[in-house]
């Protein structure tokens, strides 16, 4: 009997002991990040050190598949606890029920300067008015120039109009034999022509999607506006100053374009700051001690128009998460000053108070000048047609026109008809 009692006590102690260990096990949350691991690894390690009760498992996926994958998983109760998403996806993800509303967290446990401190707040809201994402990083696109090639072509100042930009590009090509404005003219569903087309329209005070005073949405362009943008970019292809092979490039960070800028085979490019930083670094590595012959400048615009976008990323919490408090703790930490100061230095923070502290320096001067003339996607993101559809249709239409598949007039008509068909 005594033996039985002793065995019972030992078994009970073992169970209690195991339960004690289980209680001490950290909660594991998954974070899906779409850029390189080294950009956030240090920040995650530091978070785990500060919060030994939370373990963060890093998952990585490419930007091209990130949105679809998350939506598919969230629809069936799966997916990471925290996800890295483009600002323009947040409204539709919130409306799809894929992400958690953050309003309660922001009220009970807000970031140091509150939600009002964040840029692109309009894009963080769902159509129900709730907040579904915390703006994390922000950036804008600007023009980048090889000053040595411009000088060789007899150009001593950066262009401020679209016409001058074209003339400079042509001059570089004719006088140096190098590419002028080499932009990625490919038609991939998430390519860069989308940005360049919109920058052109915005600089003219127009937009593909506009919200009317009564709150409804409409197409903001006439076929002639689309044709003008297509003809503008097509002349670079026809003139040869943007090589035909760039019809196969769709991204600003396409290796062919980056390499051409680094090696001095191309004079002008359009890109976000992290791509420009990579180019500067590659140049410095290849030419140690040499002053980089680069300058940045804003896209042409009028005094009262915009010519680039305030882009960036947000962090969202999956509606299916079993650890919402831990997920919020992590999201708040990742948006903190310490992370941007010590670890995540490739991007700019989305908080205005942190953004003001940044010294852009001479090479990034053009990006700083572009910010006041940049806009959010606004009606594009909150409108009735998914932004991916607008993006893809625009890419395809420009691809058809720039490759000579159809005339710019036909491509423009097709684009507006395609989008118009999906407007209510």
């Amino acid at each position, binding site marked *: 009997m005594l033996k039985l009692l002793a065995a019972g006590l030992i078994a009970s102690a073992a169970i209690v002991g195991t339960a004690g260990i289980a209680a001490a096990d950290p909660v594991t949350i998954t974070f899906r990040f779409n850029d390189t691991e080294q950009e956030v690894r240090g920040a995650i390690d530091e978070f785990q050190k500060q919060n030994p009760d939370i373990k963060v498992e890093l998952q990585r996926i490419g930007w091209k598949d990130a949105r*679809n994958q998350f*939506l*598919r998983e969230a*629809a*069936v109760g799966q997916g990471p606890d925290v996800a890295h998403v483009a600002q323009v996806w947040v409204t*539709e993800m919130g*409306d*799809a*029920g894929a992400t958690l509303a953050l309003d309660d967290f922001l009220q009970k446990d807000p970031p140091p300067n509150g939600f009002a401190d964040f840029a692109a707040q309009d894009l963080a809201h769902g159509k129900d008015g709730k907040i579904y994402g915390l703006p994390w990083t922000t950036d804008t696109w600007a023009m980048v120039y090889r000053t040595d090639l411009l000088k060789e072509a007899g150009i001593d100042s950066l262009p401020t109009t679209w016409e001058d930009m074209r003339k400079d590009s042509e001059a570089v090509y004719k006088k140096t034999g190098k590419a002028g404005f080499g932009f990625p003219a*490919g*038609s*991939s*569903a998430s390519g860069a022509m989308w940005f360049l087309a919109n920058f052109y329209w915005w600089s003219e005070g127009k937009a593909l999607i506009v919200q009317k005073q009564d709150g409804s949405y409409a197409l903001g362009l006439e076929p002639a506006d689309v044709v003008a943008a297509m003809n503008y970019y097509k002349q670079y292809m026809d003139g040869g100053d943007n*090589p*035909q*092979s*760039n*019809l*196969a490039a*769709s991204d600003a960070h396409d290796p*062919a374009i980056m390499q051409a800028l680094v090696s001095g085979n191309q004079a002008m490019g359009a890109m976000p700051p992290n791509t420009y930083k990579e180019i500067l670094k590659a140049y410095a590595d290849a030419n140690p001690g040499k002053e980089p012959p680069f300058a940045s400048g804003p896209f042409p615009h009028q005094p009262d128009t915009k010519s680039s976008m305030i882009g960036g990323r947000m962090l969202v919490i999956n509606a299916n998460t079993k650890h919402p408090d831990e997920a919020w703790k992590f999201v708040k930490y990742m948006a903190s000053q310490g992370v941007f100061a010590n670890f995540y230095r490739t991007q700019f923070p989305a908080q205005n108070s942190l953004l003001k502290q940044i010294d852009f320096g001479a090479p990034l001067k053009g990006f700083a000048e572009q910010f006041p003339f940049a806009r959010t996607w606004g009606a594009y993101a909150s409108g009735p047609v*998914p932004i*991916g*559809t607008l993006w*893809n249709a625009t890419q*395809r*239409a*420009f*691809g*058809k*026109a*720039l*490759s*000579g*598949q*159809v005339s710019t007039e036909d*491509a423009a008509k*097709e684009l507006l008809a395609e989008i118009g068909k999906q407007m209510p």
Partner: protein
Amino acid sequence: MRDRLFITTMLLPSMVLLVLFYGYPIFDNLRISFTDLSLLGMKKGGNWVGLANYRELFHSGEFNHILFNTFIWLTATSVVLRLLFGLGIALLLNTRAMRVLRLAAVSRFALLIPWATPPIVAVVIWRFLLERNGFVNDALIGLGLISQPIAFLADIRTVWPSIVLIMLWNTVPLIALSLLSSLQTVPEEYYEAAELDGATSWQTFRFVTLPFLMPAILVLGLMSVFWSFNNFVYVWLATGAGPGTFTNVLATEVYLKAFVDFRLGYSSAIGMVMAVVMGAFGILYLRLVAQRQLEETL
């Protein structure tokens, strides 16, 4: 009667598996094709729209262009060239000269390399080879054949031939090796008899070799049609269906509509059209190949 019952009983597990893993998804896809289900609305489901997706598809300005690309470039051109090149290589490897020079084994091994290369890797390799500063442009410029690099995968004059070239590189070896096996089953006496009768090389090939190869060519041809018609990887990875929509095919259109435009209902309708076409080829396959095999077995 008892035999029939026995056969039915034995086939039942396979039938159940087929219904579960093929029948159910097909019928569910058919159901979705009659709705406006969106990737953003998966939680609440789609609304019934009847034949609207099919009507839109058949009236779409792009549909004929996509069908042309799928049938003519992706399927017909690639299958015919695959068979021709495969046959040519098989005949070459089967020559006496190759055996005498002890090149047959080496060549067979060399053929295995492209065949064993996964399509994704094959496309990536060829993208490097065909790019502006790639080997192909460098070689053509070096030989003085061109003065400026060609944008092989972006120029509408070269993009389809380039895609077909990638497909051929990756898939011809299987055809060649299969046909080589068939060639080696042709009895030597037939060739000797043809020689005694004074047949020319062409006559020997036409009346001795080809009849022996025809069953294999038929099977490989039909299988190639299945592999090509449904193929997504070569076009998507090589060109992303571009420039513009120049190389868009049914499989890439399914992806674009489902995962770029989020229109799962419409995308399912395209999938059903593909299934019907494949079904027609399936019937052809059954008639021409499977039925013959069954008769031979019985």
